[in-house]
């Protein structure tokens, strides 16, 4: 990591959802996000990938404080979010979010113009200026204000609605935009249009993106760095090129090799891993991936791996890459020799 302070620093973020006790079931917790640490640099796009239940959306919601963390803190430009230095309302002006379902995230009884102008008015912008800003933004996202400003969400197509959601997220002039599966519900030909729009807006407004998606091709295309999550924990984090060229964590490697081949002559011959991800209510002990891992040894079920740096930008949470662990297939010395 460079010496520059990160724009967003996440430390020990944890969310346990309590489960109601039912007959025959003791009350327990869903460990949706468990001690997640990462930072986001100014102007970069950080992609977050993982399967359902890995905690990627919960992480996004925790960042936005849409739900309260069980533990941990978020630091924005050196200030703790929610402290006296940076009240929640001010933080929300700086960080905005776009959701997957473009329809349920817009108020059906407001015109799109009113939806976009709502946020700025809450933050003290006059109605006249807020509407003007809304119209500017509509044209920035490719929706002609004269035609679209007075429409209601149900009068728009999915792609158009997602453009409105993006305009609304930008209405407060935020620094960071969290895109939670923002293009996943769109058709491929429309998805490409929205991805291009996101690239243009990023440049025009100097934005930083957190891009959450299960579509690895899209994440590879848009992200500078990628973070892979499994059962509420970060298992690997590296530059996009490094992770797609050679993912170190056995899960990250399996996930990336699960992408269908686009070449009819190079079809996938065997599934990279078997089974489904386990339930996050009672995650496996030690390394949470050991139940599906082909490299698992006895040590993996008893000892939880730490996120370890293997070079300046590449971090991995696997006992094979941790020093002083008796994993028979340790890669630590191999890396030392290579370096």
């Amino acid at each position, binding site marked *: 990591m460079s010496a520059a302070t990160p724009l967003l620093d996440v430390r020990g973020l944890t969310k346990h959802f309590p489960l109601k006790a039912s007959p025959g079931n003791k009350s327990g917790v869903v460990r949706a996000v468990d001690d997640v640490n990462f930072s986001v640099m100014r102007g970069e796009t950080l992609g977050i990938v993982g399967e359902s239940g890995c905690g990627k959306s919960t992480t996004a919601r925790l960042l936005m404080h849409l739900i309260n963390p069980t533990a941990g803190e978020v630091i924005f430009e050196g200030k703790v979010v929610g402290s006296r230095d940076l009240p929640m309302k001010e933080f929300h002006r700086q960080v905005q979010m776009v959701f997957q379902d473009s329809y349920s995230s817009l108020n059906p009884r407001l015109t799109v113009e009113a939806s976009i102008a709502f946020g700025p008015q809450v933050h003290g912008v006059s109605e006249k200026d807020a509407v003007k800003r809304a119209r500017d933004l509509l044209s920035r996202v490719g929706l002609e204000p004269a035609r679209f400003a007075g429409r209601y969400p149900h009068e728009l197509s999915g792609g158009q609605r997602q453009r409105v959601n993006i305009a609304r997220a930008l209405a407060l002039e935020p620094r960071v935009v969290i895109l939670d599966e923002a293009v996943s519900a769109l058709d*491929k030909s429309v998805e490409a249009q929205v991805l291009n729009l996101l*690239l243009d807006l990023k440049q025009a407004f100097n934005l930083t993106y957190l891009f959450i998606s299960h579509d690895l091709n899209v994440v590879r295309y848009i992200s500078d760095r990628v973070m892979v999550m499994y059962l509420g924990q970060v298992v690997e984090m590296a530059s996009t090129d490094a992770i797609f060229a050679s993912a170190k964590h056995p899960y990250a490697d399996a996930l990336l090799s*699960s992408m269908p*081949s686009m070449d009819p002559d190079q079809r*996938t011959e065997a599934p990279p891993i078997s089974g489904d991800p386990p339930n996050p209510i009672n995650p496996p002990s030690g390394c949470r991936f050991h139940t599906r891992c082909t490299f698992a040894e006895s040590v993996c079920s008893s000892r939880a791996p730490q996120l370890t740096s293997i070079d300046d930008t590449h971090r991995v949470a696997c006992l094979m890459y941790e020093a002083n662990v008796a994993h028979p297939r340790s890669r630590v010395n191999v890396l030392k020799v290579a370096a």
Partner: protein
Amino acid sequence: MSQDAIIEIKDLEVVFGSGSAAVRAVNGVSLCVERGQTVALIGESGSGKSVTLRSLLRLHAPKRTSIKGSIRVAGHDVLSLSSSALSDFRGEVCSMIFQEPLLALDPVYSVGDQIIESIQRHKGCSRAEANKKALALFERVKIPSPERRLAAYPHEMSGGMRQRAMIALALACDPQVLLADEPTTALDATVQIQILLLLRELQKTLGLSIVFVTHDIGAAVEVADRIAVMYAGQIVEEGDVRTIMRAPRHPYTKALLQSRAHGSLDRGQRLATIPGAPPDLAKLPPGCAFAPRCAYAQDACREGTIALVSLGESHGARCRRTDVTHLPHTESVEA
């Protein structure tokens, strides 16, 4: 067409509703699937791919749907089957797996009971025999500890396991044709590839003919022998999977393949996009439905019906400009 055809769809038209609000979901689809072949129907939402597939089992509500054309599956004329013949046909000749197994399976019966019921209905065997067969099916689709899983209810299984159970149910009465409607879309990446490979293996060992509907080109490439691309209720291009992936000739297929984000793209490089959005099926434009979004379109494309142009053995595109579509668009203008 071919002697070996197990599915022959001719000039299929499916219209929902009537009058000015009529939605013309399928507009003249003809498709031939040979025995032992896997055909993928790909397209965006509203392109008519699922409607075509469901017509093969006549799953549309008869009161609100008008179906024209002919469908023959393994010698049965599907559109004229009586309701009892249709019940025999479903499951025994042709069966289907759906996108969301949690909705497709009955929540109040164990998955084993659902499979046994189906086997007893069609094969008329004893419950013990049906149970034995169900167990063998669970082993075939690689469900771990199959005896225990037969007694499980759908909600007790994980997503991938449920999809395996639904495949077992679909195969319960030894059908010749398996229809799959987005079977992996709701699954995670590592589970999706397992299910795709399972389908490929079952196709090979059981000699099934499969029609596979998906919007994911990658999934289609993993399992299909042939690909048919649908747009606005028509098959706009059809061919061998290699031909479609390497030398597509319909401008829509070309644009669809180019607009995908894929590994060889540089970051920050803009994606090629298709302008506009798919047409409203209640108000289709005259001529080629893709013409308003097509870079190659000429005035002639906006009138009449567009015929399928043969481009070599088993490759065809519904386009008037196939003489130039193998060239990039800029060169085609000069030509």
